[in-house]
């Protein structure tokens, strides 16, 4: 009896949580759509950067947070997306929307080809192999001059002119669109059959296979999805900064940043990487202003402290708080039957 009551109480709580989440999502959507009207050019650029890093952190979350494969070399797909877009726009004369989608698909296709051999590796070996991949692709971009202009780089046309706000606005919306798509995909992963497969692989790959999960295919699809959104973000980024070269498109500092963001926010959750991106970017700006000369050292220290103090990330912290609240709400007798 008590158990039935308690579980219906919890289910009711979940339903409230879900509707609260829906209201929150709508409010957030309105704010995000109107935001460019309220922000200065400077803050709009920072916000666009938050959206980009949130996408990268979220895409990384699919393969690393849900599947447990530390793909630090995801910058390879960022660069491939950026270069694919630049080449499609400047050499093939494609329209922007088609070029963005194709750039994402190019990154995904590239991942599908190199994914199978690399995904045979696990743990540190996998991480290192993805880093090597990223460096290899950078060298390829530098040396395939006929396609990429080599070290000289590629200049892209701008999308808008006018005030700093007007110039940044289209990239803000494009980045927002990519992030929303990426978050929707991650949410699907978090609730779907496919996602259960990924989480099982993360927990124990051998056991997962024994439960009937096609681990090779699941891992590959997860990484291809991750590469697709990373490539989309790279494509929009290339449009935004209007000039790319191998050093900037295959920059491992980007990987350090998005992985820190995802870790900080909480891997394996949908909201975590986005929160992490927001926090780190805001921290970076604040620390940049206050400690101009040593901001990287201070940022590193701050991040180390945060990760040490809450290893599960922000989302774990929030969940723990929520669990405590729930326990306090439950009646003592219900607590007894729970045991």
């Amino acid at each position, binding site marked *: 009896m008590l158990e039935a009551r308690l579980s219906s109480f919890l289910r009711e709580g979940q339903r409230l949580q879900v509707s609260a989440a829906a209201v929150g999502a709508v409010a957030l959507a309105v704010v995000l759509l109107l935001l460019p009207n309220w922000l200065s050019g400077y803050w709009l650029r920072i916000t666009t950067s938050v959206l980009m890093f949130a996408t990268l952190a979220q895409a990384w979350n699919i393969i690393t947070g849900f599947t447990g494969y530390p793909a630090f070399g995801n910058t390879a797909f960022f660069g491939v997306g950026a270069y694919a877009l630049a080449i499609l726009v400047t050499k093939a004369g494609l329209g922007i929307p088609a070029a963005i989608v194709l750039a994402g698909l190019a990154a995904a296709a590239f991942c599908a080809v190199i994914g199978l051999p690399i995904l045979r590796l696990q743990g540190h070996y996998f991480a290192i192999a993805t880093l090597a991949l990223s460096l290899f692709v950078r060298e390829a971009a530098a040396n395939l001059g006929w396609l990429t202009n080599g070290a000289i780089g590629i200049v892209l046309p701008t999308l808008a002119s006018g005030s700093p706000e007007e110039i940044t606005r289209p990239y803000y919306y494009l980045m927002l669109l990519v992030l929303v798509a990426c978050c929707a995909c991650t949410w699907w992963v978090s609730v779907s059959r496919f996602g*259960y497969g990924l989480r099982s692989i993360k927990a124990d790959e051998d056991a997962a296979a024994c439960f009937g999960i096609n681990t090779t295919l699941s891992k590959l699809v997860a990484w291809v999805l991750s590469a697709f959104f990373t490539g989309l973000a790279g494509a929009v980024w290339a449009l935004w900064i209007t000039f790319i070269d191998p050093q900037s498109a295959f920059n491992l500092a980007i990987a350090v940043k998005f992985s820190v963001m995802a870790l900080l926010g909480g891997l394996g959750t949908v909201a975590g990487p986005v929160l992490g991106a927001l926090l780190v970017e805001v921290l970076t700006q604040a620390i940049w202003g206050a400690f101009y000369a040593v901001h990287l050292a201070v940022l590193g220290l701050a991040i180390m402290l945060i990760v040490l103090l809450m290893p599960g990330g922000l989302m774990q912290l929030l969940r723990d708080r929520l669990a405590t609240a729930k326990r306090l709400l439950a009646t003592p007798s219900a607590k007894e039957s729970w045991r």
Partner: protein
Amino acid sequence: MSATVAPALDVRGVVKGFGAVRAVDGVSLAVRSGEVLGVVGPNGAGKSTLVNIISGLVKADAGEIAYRGVPIHRLSPDEVARLGVARTFQIVKPLRDLSVIENVMVGALFGRRQCRSTREARRIAEEALAQVQLGHRAEAECRKISTGETKKLDLARALAMDPDVLLLDEPLAGVGARESQTLIELIVGLAKSGKAILLVEHVVRVVWTISDRVAVLHHGAKIAEGPPKEVAADDQVMAAYLGERYIREVLQRPADDAEPGVSSDGDGGP
């Protein structure tokens, strides 16, 4: 049972070496639907390796395995599982970060049932948890449950996969006496309902009471097989290979006792 019907599980001449160790040395076994085959033997006899080979996790060096007449020894573990061969683990592998019921749902989603909807999977998981009497822990985090409960969870997941063949690797290890009784009754019931069960168990007493036939492994080789009474009466085999102390101690110990002293007496045998 007609002799022309292929056994649910047919293992023939399986060999597996790890370096110099012959973990499994030419073992042949057959398990029919509705039957419990007990597999016993001291630590290191090759029981878990045999289960790993049948489930596809470890590739044998030689030998063949058929499931209802169809060869499966070249298949990957997920293919074997989807055909209808489910296993549990001696060292249970709960999927961390998933709750108890989600762990079991994985079995329904990816086992032979291939449930497409998570809601349907949840319903099946609830049934499976009820079967092992773990329903009250459905929403618990699996890292917070006891050893005995992880054993039940492991079995529930295997049941949710809807298998014809169940490979149980020491399902009672670490389970308390009363809960053991529940699981034993469940295993007997599953066999009655038509499943073929290969039961690896260290607690020999249990194997002897619920198995239709018993196979004894020692140093990777099968040294005896038959109805429990006959194998137990085969003093020569038991004494020579397992040591009298093994029988004496194990057969008289309570069911939840761990790790009986083994094999030191037997190693002098031929």
